[in-house]
């Protein structure tokens, strides 16, 4: 499973009968629960997630693999170019100045795009290609369009 800070997903199923799945289930992390990745520790092995009901728990990124998740939202910066894969801009997590800047460049909520390049980011939209810096990409939260 791809993971990135600030990514949100919904658990579809827990494919695991080992201790890990069992414990999560008893804690109320069940199919249908929403999960947000808050931070990824040094060298990526330990992650902190917040489940939708608010509890913060530490897990291993590898173990998240047993969870079958549906991606709900992810920062643009975590994505890579992929032919034909479309995303929609869901929200911006920046201040007023950032919102204004995005608006001026025609990057708006609900804009649908495809990633052509990722350094720097070039997004192909209906109205042409937009370039976005890496720092900016972290503040643009997108969702997959299927």
């Amino acid at each position, binding site marked *: 499973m791809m993971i990135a800070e600030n990514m949100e997903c919904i658990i579809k199923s827990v494919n695991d009968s080992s201790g890990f799945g069992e414990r999560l289930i008893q804690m*109320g992390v069940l199919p249908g629960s929403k999960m947000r990745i808050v931070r990824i*520790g040094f060298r990526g092995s330990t992650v902190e997630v917040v489940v939708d009901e*608010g509890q913060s728990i530490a897990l291993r990124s590898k173990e998240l693999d047993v969870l079958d998740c549906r991606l709900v939202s992810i920062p643009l910066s975590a994505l890579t170019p992929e032919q034909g894969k479309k995303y929609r801009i869901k929200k911006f997590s920046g201040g007023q100045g950032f919102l204004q800047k995005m608006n001026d460049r025609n990057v708006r909520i609900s804009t649908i795009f495809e990633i052509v390049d990722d350094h720097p980011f070039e997004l192909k939209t209906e109205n042409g290609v937009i370039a976005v810096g890496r720092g900016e990409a972290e503040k643009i939260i997108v969702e997959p369009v299927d």
Partner: protein
Amino acid sequence: MTDMDDKSITIAISSIPNTGKSTLFNKLTGAHQAVGNWAGVSVEKKSGHFRLDGYDVTLIDLPGAYSVTPTSIEETIVSNYLLNTPPDFIINIIDARNMYRSLGLTLQLAQSGIPMVVAVNMMDEARRAGMKIDIKALSNHLGCKVVPIVARTGEGIDELKNAILKTLKDPSLFRPPNISRPPVVENAIITLAKKIEKINPDPVLNKTFIAERLLDSGELPKYTQVDKKILEEIVKDVKHLRAKTEMNLGEDMSVTCAKCRFNSARGLVNEATSETIRVPDKFTNALDKVLLNKYAGLPMFFIIMFLLFQGIYAIGTPLQAIIGDFFTLMQSALHETVIFKSLHPFISNLLIDGVLNGAGIVISFFPLIAVFFIFMSLIEDSGYMARAAFLLDRLMHSLGLDGKAFINILLGYGCNVPAIMGTRILSSRHNRIITMLLIPFTLCSARFQVFVFLSAILFAPSVAPWVVTALYAVSFIMVFAIGFLLKLFKFAGKPEPFIMEIPPFRVPTLNTVSIRAWMEMKSFLYRASTFIVAGVVLVWLLTNLPFGVEPGSINTWAGKIGQFLQPVFSPIGIGWREVIALIFGFVAKEIVVGSMAVIYGADTATQILASITPLKGFSFMIFTLLYTPCIATIAAIKSESRSWRITGISLALGLIIAWVMAFIVYQGGLLLGF
């Protein structure tokens, strides 16, 4: 009213981890159970007493558990207790800011048939977050009395007691709640419940509850009084019904049961709370941004540990010096008194140079220990413990262990015994054993005293704290090095699933911190006044007998023992006097300090300085750091591992590694010309 008229009943406090069970327990009974802000502080069931208007209550504080289907040892303790020896009454606690997660267990318990009241704790935090809770709605749905409380301050405790009394007197106030389940499950439960009704093995527990437990976990309680044949039949039925429902629903039975419970919980939360609040709160978020930072987090952990140590040292050692001086003054004053002059010199020396000198030096560490545990409990009660575990998880993972095991190792720096018991929060036996083998290499507070004592004598005042710091570093490195060593010998932990709750930061209360420090000091004073004194007296006798030889000389019994062991210890620069101290150090490390004082007699510092070089002293400290911490630790390892082999391995590992490391230090130091 007298005790005789009182009816005795048992009430158990049960809830998910870190909701304030022990805090409430302490408030109700006036006991001093350890409280800390992470999941898994209590790993044993503890009992206490209080009086409740006509009832003599035995209150049981249980470890935290998410459900009666256990996934670790502490949870097994809970489910065994609740299912096999049900209490008369349950107090369940809900964390006001985390109701959904708490309610899973609440709903399970409410169905058990054991009368119950629910306490909604942490109301102070909920109020601060602007959260409103509809207690009436909760109470209606759960079918029992619900009381908002703040266990920390005692707010709402009287109301809670009242609710318990009312429910005890009028059982109709309590009725198991309804949980909606898929029809297949419902039918299976009804079928099973009927069968169980027939054998009626358990007068207390609700039959539907037993039936659901059976379906959920597939395990039958041990009903010794029921005919084996009938039980086997029921087991067969359960298997059949489980298979049928799992087929029908396409998922694990335990998932289905949890789903039913948590769906009800979610509905209840939606109905009873005004708005969903963001847990973790702003304060926690802001702190975590810094403390758990990807790059700065780990260095910050070491800096925090270093500052703590500096603080303990800076505050504790001057206080220690004052008490130490006081005892020295007292000794010389007593020697001059008429009473002691009239005694036989052997007796007066035993009392003054033996007992008073030895025990006095140990007791002078009293303030240092107090400051140490005050700082330690700040770490435990603030919530930083779980953060440390998060940061170190990666490193622990390379040993096949995880961040939770690191919590135990960190606890070892206070005292090894509770740290070893604390390994119950680990889910596999294998990982528990490895952690248990590593904990004895932590620099516990008793060893700390030896190092403060010796380094102050052997090194300049500006160097001494650095020597102790270096020993902390050595201890930390050794824990990991030995972890790798064990892995090399295929002794490593199997990578275990790692799930650890990260609690919100809380400001530690004066109460918990002082209780914690006080309990540690009490046990320190107890040790000091009993077997540390005994050990010191023994050492004094050994160094003064047989009659006629020069006290403290090689001709005494101690000298003979030391000489006998000399071949083993001379390669590591440890003389016969220190060997005696090390032997008694097996009992408790504090005795090492006491024995040194007794062996070297009055004016200990000058005497030690005259016969031990700094290098020899450092080698001695390395040995003290790494060999068996104390008898209590060995006993804890034996009782937790239930294996003499593991206990033996731990002993041997400590002695061998201590010797090898001291050898490297001493011979290396000699080569380098120290």
